[in-house]
């Protein structure tokens, strides 16, 4: 006879309500895990998307994501001629705000050379850029759809295609423009003093620049050796793809990652305290029954089983409700919530441990109950 199951069945409504409360808490925990994964994944997606082996950036900088990087436009030609380089492409990045449907749309603009590295990988709707100017491919999360037009700087662009899961570490959806358009946009968005100087015909130092040149290497070519070659040019620096990803994780998303990690830790602690309180309260309500069970000869393992099994059932149902809820609502979050099976497994393990530890308080109270209290003496 399973006493835990019988007790749950007898107080089913209360049990379900308690599980629902716990499920909501689990939803928040899972959302935090998903946001954390999404943050890292989004940040890496931008770096991984061009499928580059080498990032050539301004000397003494850590590349276009961690710091501002400006290198001459013609760097691509120099890089493309290096031994072992199969393909190279110039690329620019900038974050802008543009009015769209009476709201300000924050976009991460990626400029690339058509036919070279750095463009969108998989178009999920519409097509890629075909015209030299005023076309864009946008991330679906931006809310833009093919056929929409939007003013960036002083020009109106038409959305011709959509991609998915392409955004910067801040969660701003990406849009792809031709390099030429992106460079014009950069100039238009220069500080006003620079624009005034340009208007009166003053020589603007540096001419057109790009943020980085990305390169794909031939098979069996060591990226580090090509990077070392690039570093010999004093005005340039080079990072391998692995170094670029490492910089992004460590310097760009590290604080946000720690913040979310800390919040996750607090949430799990709160969950543990809530589970412990629920189990403790449930046990305290049953003290007379536990005293009776002891008096009629029930061994400690029967009483411990009653409490621990209920605690585990509470955790398991709460976790399942939490999983169901987060799967139902994750697409409504402003940031990407990326949940993987390993997250559910890790949380299951944590909840299992928390439930067993939390039931310890209840078990302790139950084992201290004097069977004489059942007799009222």
């Amino acid at each position, binding site marked *: 006879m399973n006493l835990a199951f019988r007790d749950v069945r*007898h107080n089913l409504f209360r049990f379900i309500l308690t599980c629902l409360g716990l499920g909501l808490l689990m939803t928040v925990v899972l959302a935090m895990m998903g946001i954390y994964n999404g943050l890292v994944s989004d940040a890496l997606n931008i770096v991984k998307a061009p499928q580059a082996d080498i990032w050539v950036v301004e000397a003494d900088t850590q590349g276009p994501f961690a710091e501002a990087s400006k290198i001459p436009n013609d760097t691509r030609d120099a890089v493309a001629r290096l031994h072992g380089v199969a393909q190279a492409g110039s690329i620019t990045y900038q974050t802008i705000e543009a009015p769209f449907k009476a709201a300000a749309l924050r976009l991460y603009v990626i400029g690339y050379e058509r036919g070279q590295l750095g463009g969108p990988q998989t178009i999920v709707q519409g097509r890629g850029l075909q015209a030299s100017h005023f076309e864009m491919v946008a991330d679906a999360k931006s809310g833009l759809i093919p056929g929409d037009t939007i003013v960036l700087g002083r020009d109106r662009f038409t959305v011709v295609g959509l991609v998915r899961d392409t955004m910067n570490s801040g969660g701003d959806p990406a849009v792809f423009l031709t390099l030429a358009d992106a460079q014009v946009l950069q100039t238009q968005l220069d500080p006003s003093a620079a624009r005034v100087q340009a208007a009166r015909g003053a020589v603007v130092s540096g001419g057109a620049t790009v943020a980085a040149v990305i390169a794909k290497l031939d098979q069996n070519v060591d990226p580090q050796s090509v990077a070392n070659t690039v570093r010999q040019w004093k005005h340039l620096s080079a990072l391998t793809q692995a170094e670029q990803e490492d910089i992004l994780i460590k310097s760009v998303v590290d604080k946000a990652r720690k913040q979310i990690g800390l919040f996750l830790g607090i949430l799990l602690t709160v969950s543990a305290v809530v589970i412990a309180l629920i189990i403790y309260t449930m046990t305290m309500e049953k003290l007379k029954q536990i005293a009776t069970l002891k008096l*009629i000869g029930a061994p400690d393992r029967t009483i411990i089983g009653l409490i621990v099994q209920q605690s585990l059932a509470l955790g398991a149902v709460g976790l399942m409700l939490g999983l169901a809820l987060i799967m139902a609502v994750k697409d409504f979050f402003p940031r990407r919530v990326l949940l993987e099976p390993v997250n559910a497994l890790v949380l299951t393990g944590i909840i299992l441990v928390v439930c067993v530890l939390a039931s310890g308080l209840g078990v302790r109270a139950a084992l201290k109950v004097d069977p*004489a209290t059942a*007799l009222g003496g």
Partner: protein
Amino acid sequence: MDRRVIVDIKGVAKHYGDGETRVDALRNLDLQVHAGEVVALLGPSGSGKTTLLNIIGCIIDPSEGQVSLDGELVYDNRWLRGDLRRLRLDKIGFIFQAHNLIPFLNAVDNVALVLQLAGKTTAQAQTRAMELLDYLEVGPRARAMPALLSGGEAQRVAIARALANSPRIILADEPTAALDSKRAGIVMDLLRKLAAEQDACIIAVTHDEKIMDRFDRLFHLRDGRLEE
């Protein structure tokens, strides 16, 4: 009738605290209860009735003395049995003032639980539990939850639970306090009948004047001492 001594208490004392704060709940107390006997423990509140019941039920330790249950010396200035819960399960049945049925188990499962704790299979426990409920004329209410049973029905289920493992000692704490005089009489007659049939002894703590004629012997506790 087997007139064997079932409960044999010699020189039992129980005191709480020491020195000036010492309270003697029981003093040098002797009691023998035979098989088939139904005895009452009477006395004012605080006289030590429940303490004595707890000592016979192996729930609290006497301060000194000897306790023998069903021919086995179980306490001689210390407990001689390691597992007192098993001793209670095998030899002692408890009937409470407020029946103390487990609220999340139905009537038959309340009885079957004790049998399963003693090692019976689910099927054996259910069969025996149903026999007892039928015997006590609450069989038709076997599937009812305790909250849906009347006071008399609940008390008969509690009696069935106390009798489930055929104990030789039944300890009852105010077994009729929650019943009207008619039902109290029925319950006491039932206990007398069961004691006779199972060669068990029944020791009941009671204040209930209307059932005094149902006991074989009445013991009065005054200032921790027992008088018959």
